[in-house]
């Protein structure tokens, strides 16, 4: 019990620290959101119209008052889930912007993360099961090789080959200009087509870590005494691999997976930027480059909370799965 209390206390403390840093860091950056908006509008080749700049500043509402009272207001807003109006999408609220982008990221990245995990774990287990065979060398060497390729390069290559040269898939975006988001078959097939290339890019690079982790864990567990005993008892090889090897070797991967899901947002910036995908990652990038503090804060907050919750859950699960952890912490 003490273990779980401790974990909860730690969780709350980290959460507070994260929320506070999230408030402070954007305010330490130099720059002016109104100027950033104008720059987005007209580039740097035209003179700034001071009247326009003043009107935009007034529209966004400059932050008055000292940092402490701002911080107090911010904490209150966070507790109530009020994130205010986005600067770069004025007058739309931060919540509305996140609600628009969230489903895209959840579906594209969520599905590919789960698939990557499944594929990676299976391939890793297979490689360990047939270790030192040709299958093992292909999987291990292949995934190591793919792992060295930069993600953006794979993305651009896919676009170049499948979108530009072969013209099989669209070159970017979440859906075509001709269709609007709606609950129709036409839209879904269109959205599906647009998701193929980014999903492929994620599926090429995603499983690499899981493969290597799973293979190494399993090779180790298969060398343990209980696995040897099972072999001596004459159990079928597949049963040894699945029930004795994989089941135990998968544990660290499960923790990793929980954390990966929590940090979903952070990992999507690149893929969504390359494929122009209308999800949270691209929204985050835009918020940062436009100095859209309210949007930035909310997105960072979601990321940190996601990671923290995932960590907390992983910790708690570990406590259940492995009694040694509980005991070690209690003493």
């Amino acid at each position: 019990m003490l273990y779980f209390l401790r974990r909860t206390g730690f969780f709350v403390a980290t959460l507070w620290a994260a929320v506070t840093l999230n408030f402070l860091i954007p305010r330490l950056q130099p720059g002016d959101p109104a100027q950033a908006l104008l720059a987005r509008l007209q580039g740097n080749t035209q003179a700034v119209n001071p009247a326009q700049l003043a009107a935009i500043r007034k529209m966004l509402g400059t932050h008055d008052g000292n940092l402490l009272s701002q911080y107090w207001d911010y904490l209150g807003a966070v507790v109530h889930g009020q994130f205010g109006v986005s600067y770069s999408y004025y007058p739309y609220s931060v919540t509305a912007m996140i609600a628009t982008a969230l489903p895209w990221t959840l579906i594209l990245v969520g599905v590919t993360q789960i698939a990557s995990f499944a594929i990676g774990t299976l391939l890793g287990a297979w490689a360990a099961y047939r270790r030192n065979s040709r299958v093992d060398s292909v999987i291990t060497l292949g995934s190591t090789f793919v792992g060295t390729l930069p993600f953006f390069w794979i993305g651009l290559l896919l676009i170049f080959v499948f979108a530009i040269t072969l013209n099989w898939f669209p070159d970017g975006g979440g859906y075509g200009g001709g269709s609007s988001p709606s609950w129709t078959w036409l839209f879904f097939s269109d959205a599906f087509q647009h998701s193929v290339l980014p999903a492929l890019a994620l599926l090429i690079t995603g499983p690499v870590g899981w493969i290597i982790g799973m293979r190494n864990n399993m090779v180790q567990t298969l060398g343990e005494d209980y696995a040897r005993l099972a072999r001596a008892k004459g159990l079928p090889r597949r049963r040894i691999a699945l029930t004795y090897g994989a089941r135990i070797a998968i544990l660290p991967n499960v923790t990793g997976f929980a954390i990966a899901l929590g940090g979903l947002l952070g990992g999507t910036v690149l893929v969504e930027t390359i494929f122009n995908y209308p999800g949270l990652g691209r929204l985050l990038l835009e918020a940062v480059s436009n100095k859209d503090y309210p949007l930035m804060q909310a997105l960072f907050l979601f990321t940190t909370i996601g990671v923290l919750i995932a960590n907390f859950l992983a910790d708690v699960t570990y406590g259940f799965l492995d009694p040694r952890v509980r005991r070690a912490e209690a003493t």
Partner: protein
Amino acid sequence: MTRRPWRRTFVAVAASAALVLTGCTGTEGAQKSSAGSGMIDFLNYGDFGGGTTPKANYNPYLDATKLSAADYIYESLMNVETYSCKAIPWLATAYQWSDPKTLVYTIRSGVKWNDGQPFSAKDVEFTFNMLKKFDVLDTQGVWTSLASVKADGDEKVTFTFKQPGASAFTQVSGVKIVPQHIWSKVADPTTFVNATAPVGTGPMKLKSFNPRQLVVERNPDYWQADKIKVNEIRFNKADAGGQVEQLKLSRGEYDTNAMFVQNIKKAYVDRDPEHHHYWYAPGGVISVYMNLTKAPFNDVGFRKALTTAFDDKQVIDKAQLGYVTQASQSGLVVPGQKDWLPQGLADDGRIGYDAAAADKALTDAGYAKDSKGRRLGKDGKPISFSFKVPGSYVDWVAAADILIKNLQALGITVSKDTPTPDANNQDRATGNYDMTFGVFGGGCNMYANFSDPLNSARTAPVGKKAASNEIRWQDPKTDELLHTLQVSPDEKAQKEAVAGLVDIMMNQVPTIPIWYGAKWFQYDTTKAEGWPSAQDPYADGGNGLVVLTHLVPAGS
């Protein structure tokens, strides 16, 4: 063996997925335009604003977040095109200064809102008074000089200014007019996104919107509908300037666009020399700002000597890829604003590169070189300063490198400092620099063009943020000329004042213009002709409404 069925299922799934894919390609609109009807079915335009996740917003006053459709739905009293600054009568047919504080517009009759209601002077009165009440919407700052706006019957609107208000003419003329019968019911126009069927007087109406494509269609009841030959404009979401966008441009997927392209001739024009064209009209004046509170920049002799020190041609050809033109020292944008130049100014005020002349002028002004070839200041020490340029503006950095080399050749020690754009803006505003780039002018409001960089009321001591006079020029003669320009409605007096300001630019050299920022504009004549060009500069590419009234089907 349990594996086989799994494999078969997988093959089946893959096959059906492939079927779905091949069956559904080409949803992005592949219709052909039907020739012969005298109309253009549709044109593909570039980006429509609103960032990467655009949300419906057709509030014409929310400059930073509105979508492009608003520019074709709402119109202003006069349309001041931004190339040669002609005021084209639009919702007003004429204007007159009845005295220096009173401006009367005659409103066009027979104009209808696109919901069928008649447009009248009352709407103009309402619009301006709404901007007064909600000053956030007053992006032109008209109420800094206005005292009142009153409709006089259905056809006249009288604008009264606090002081003689000639300089406010372009601002007042450019305000988009909205219908009273709709906007008077809006509780808070500052957060009104006007998303469904926005009502305006313009040539286009909203047809459809999704975050990837914004479509406007022709308004058949438009007051100059006979000039509109385009049935539909489709704006396409773009990740501005990206490689993919360039490729789409080169394949002719856009009828017009406004993006930076690295090698425009090879990447675009050569792909279809007959139809692919570009014209980059000059925009803001990009200049060398010198901190006039510091030596040696506080000495006119030094500044004047530098006017021939910079190799403009190399900046234009190497750093700016030949897309821009050399700026006139007058501060005006030539040739568009040539009419404002005083008579007899050699080469419209462009001063060529002449290192020997600069060397001599510096020595004559008391900045001789020492035995080691170092240029000495009035205090006898070698001159040394830094050039600040935003590190991420690659083309500006390249230009700064050339200018620095030019200065070094004259024996001046110049170091390069590359802060972030934000830090650079901040430093320039507070006067924390020696030499840097700044942009001014280029607009159609002559008063603003000169007042923003030169008015002593718009500066601040070093350490405080200047409103816009970041070089910290303070000169009673300049202020006097600016005042004349601000208050005299008479064109002759205005031109004299501009001539006086040009004279100050030429002889006092408060700043050294180098090149004009380019207004990106590519166009394709496959479907439509009549785009503005260097040969036919009736407006620049950014004046969407004016351009639209000139477009005709190709070959007609």
